[in-house]
């Protein structure tokens, strides 16, 4: 693009690079620091970014392997990190699949059909979505407590309860998928219906295969949201072997017994996969997150 070039462009470029590098340093420093700490010996080691006294103790403990110190004492893993990670993934996968199913079918109706109460329902969903779940925790706790007396696998301290509770947060996803459906021309489905397909068949065999990209995005978004969910999990889950990572990880930095080194290894181990998934999918995720704004 032929922009008119102002003077002193070189100094300004240098300034821009310096500013950006400054910010990058501030962003990356904590992350590098944690990686470094995870390899340092002991739980309160301080020192340079490259560890002076290298040790794999924290990593062994994070993987659940007891670690023998040079003086012969054996350290047991403090917390079952891998189990927490597995719990998180299990809950996130199931709840994301269910959210995807619920929001895809509704988005189809909102995008393609006309029915009584469509506009108020859609608006109402958007408004109700703004309420943070933290505020109705007492009610959710009561609900699952009573439900658990009748259906044990939906009670307090079950993953079933946590998965079900996440089904309330679908409005955002419906909105995203609806936008995508509306961008697909409806003539293919109409042609199918003229040939005798039912509404459901047109949806299932024509529209869904065309929408795989947005379904992936919504699945990943729901997955990440579920992994990071804290308030509901902190109230609904009680036993240590039931906790998700988001609730369990804070136990490393409890008030009186801070295991900084152990935490660092566990954080890198569990945070890295999630971060990588996000970075790999960032183009779609960012598109999904910001689409509402850019359009408006």
């Amino acid at each position, binding site marked *: 693009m032929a922009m*008119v070039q102002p003077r002193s462009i070189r100094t300004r470029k240098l300034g821009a690079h310096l500013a950006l590098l400054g910010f990058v340093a501030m962003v990356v420093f904590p992350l590098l*620091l944690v990686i470094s700490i995870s390899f340092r010996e002991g739980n*309160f080691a301080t020192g340079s970014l490259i560890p002076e006294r290298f040790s794999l103790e924290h990593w062994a403990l994070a993987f659940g392997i007891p670690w023998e110190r040079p003086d012969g004492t054996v350290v047991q893993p403090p917390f079952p990190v891998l189990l927490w990670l597995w719990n998180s993934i299990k809950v996130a996968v199931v709840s994301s699949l269910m959210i995807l199913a*619920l929001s895809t079918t509704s988005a189809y109706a909102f995008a393609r059909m006309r029915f009584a109460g469509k506009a108020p329902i859609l608006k109402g969903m958007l408004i109700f979505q703004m309420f943070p779940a933290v505020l*109705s925790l007492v*009610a959710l706790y009561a609900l699952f407590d009573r439900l658990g007396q009748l259906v044990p696998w939906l009670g307090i301290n079950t993953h079933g309860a946590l998965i079900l509770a996440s089904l309330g947060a679908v409005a955002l996803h419906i909105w995203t998928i609806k936008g995508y459906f509306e961008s697909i021309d409806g003539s293919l489905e109409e042609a199918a219906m003229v040939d005798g397909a039912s509404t459901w068949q047109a949806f299932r065999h024509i529209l869904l295969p065309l929408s795989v990209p947005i379904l992936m995005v919504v699945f990943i978004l729901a997955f990440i949201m579920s992994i990071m969910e804290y308030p509901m999990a902190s109230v609904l889950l009680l036993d240590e072997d039931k906790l998700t990572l988001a609730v369990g990880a804070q136990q490393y930095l409890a008030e009186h017994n801070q295991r900084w080194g152990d935490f660092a290894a566990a954080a890198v181990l569990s945070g890295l996969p999630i971060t990588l998934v*996000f970075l790999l999918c960032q183009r779609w995720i960012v598109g999904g997150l910001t689409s509402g704004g850019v359009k408006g």
Partner: protein
Amino acid sequence: MPREASRGLPRHRSRYPAERYTRWMLRALTALLVLATLWLVMAFHLRGQWMFALLFLVLGASLAIVFGKRELMSHRYIYPALAGMGVFVIFPLVYTIGISFSNYSSSNLLSEERVRVQFLDQTYQAEGQAFDFQLIREGKRTRLYLEAEVAGEVRRLVSRPLALAVDGQPLTVEPARAIPPGEVLGIREVIARRDTLEALALVTPAGTELQLAGLRSFAPILPRFAENPDGSLTDLRDGTTLTPNHETGFFVTEDGERLTPGWPVAVGLDNYTKIFTDPDIRGPFLQIFVWTFVFAGLTVVFTLAVGFFLATLLQWDQLRGKAIYRTLLILPYAVPAFISILIFKGMFNQNYGEINLILENLFGISPDWFTDPAMARTMLLIVNTWLGYPYMLLLCMGLIQSIPRDLFEASAVDGGGPLTNMVRITLPLILKPLTPLLIAAFAFNFNNFVLITLLTGGSPDILGASTPAGTTDLLVSYTYRIAFQDAGQNFGLAAAIATLIFLLVVGLSVLNLRLSKVSV
């Protein structure tokens, strides 16, 4: 519209068996789900939990209607999502508002019937009818000999050998004429067997249960309360009456003293008036209220400032390496928040945290990040800016891209520098589409529970507060602490504050919908 047409078609038997089976499967599934919800309705109704019975009644009925009537074909597609929202968002909302008008708390938790049953289950040891006891050893057997004088007549009882006592089952005692033969054990041996004796329950031929009462006697265990026809309870120990007070939800003694546990009753606007009039609650509440607004507002300002600044730099065509910068700069968004918040908790630690080490070395200062209110708030804002600016960066980059390039060309022709461009062109053009998103960001940070809970937990505490309140608490974390952390677990008060926040959020989201002109 063809999709309308399929709905008007007459119901017909499909030519394809596969389709017929699918239809029957769907019908069977619907029937099954309706039956399951009806079972839940009955079960909740039988337990007297009418709120939950009503919830599942509505759920089951709407399920049957939507999947039973052919005219509601389109609604079948939105029903599952609506049901999810109804049960897990709207019902909890209504329930919370309901609780806010009651005194539901850890002291008023169970229903009135359950509380009554708990009182009726209480027992007491009738000291006046106690038996003196002696341990008697005869060979290897040790037995208890009990003796009491009732109305001038001496009653004597002998137990079966203690070795036969099975855990949890009472040992029978039988009438005896005289003290059985054998060696009477001294007090020292009685003390040595105290644990065994304390665990022991004896049953007389009349069926009264006796338990150890002191080192020399066994006394009968009697039910403490008896129910009267008018609903009050009589204390059999001293003959006083307990009357149920349906205003406060407690049984009250004749002296007006409340006995716990109580049961939840409606208290009207009490929780709300308490928030605004009780000085021990109003003071902390207002302080937290103001801090919540300051925190959310400053967070939006800071994240927007940083994000906008970086976005303008990254939009500069002649800058190289933009892709790498961009990836590195959105890293805080990619790392799970619960991990990065905890990383900062460690880094800001006052004793071994890296930040204080650096500050100590460079400037010789080491701020009390967690014990000084002002420093704790500063830390929260720093961390939240770090966490939140990538979102603003991404938004701003998207919006700046949509600004026509010739505006900048014209500005350059007129001699405008980068600062002029930023203030006169970019900012005014993106601010309008950005406003609804800024409101959403404000609402999100207004309720940023995870950051507060994981980083400071609300501490340092506000002095003189009767509820658990901290100087860094937001309204949400304050509500959470009242409901779940305090020993009092005051659900009613927490629900009242939650209701107030609901109202604020409704205001924000209506404003948001207005500004973003959502078209449906």
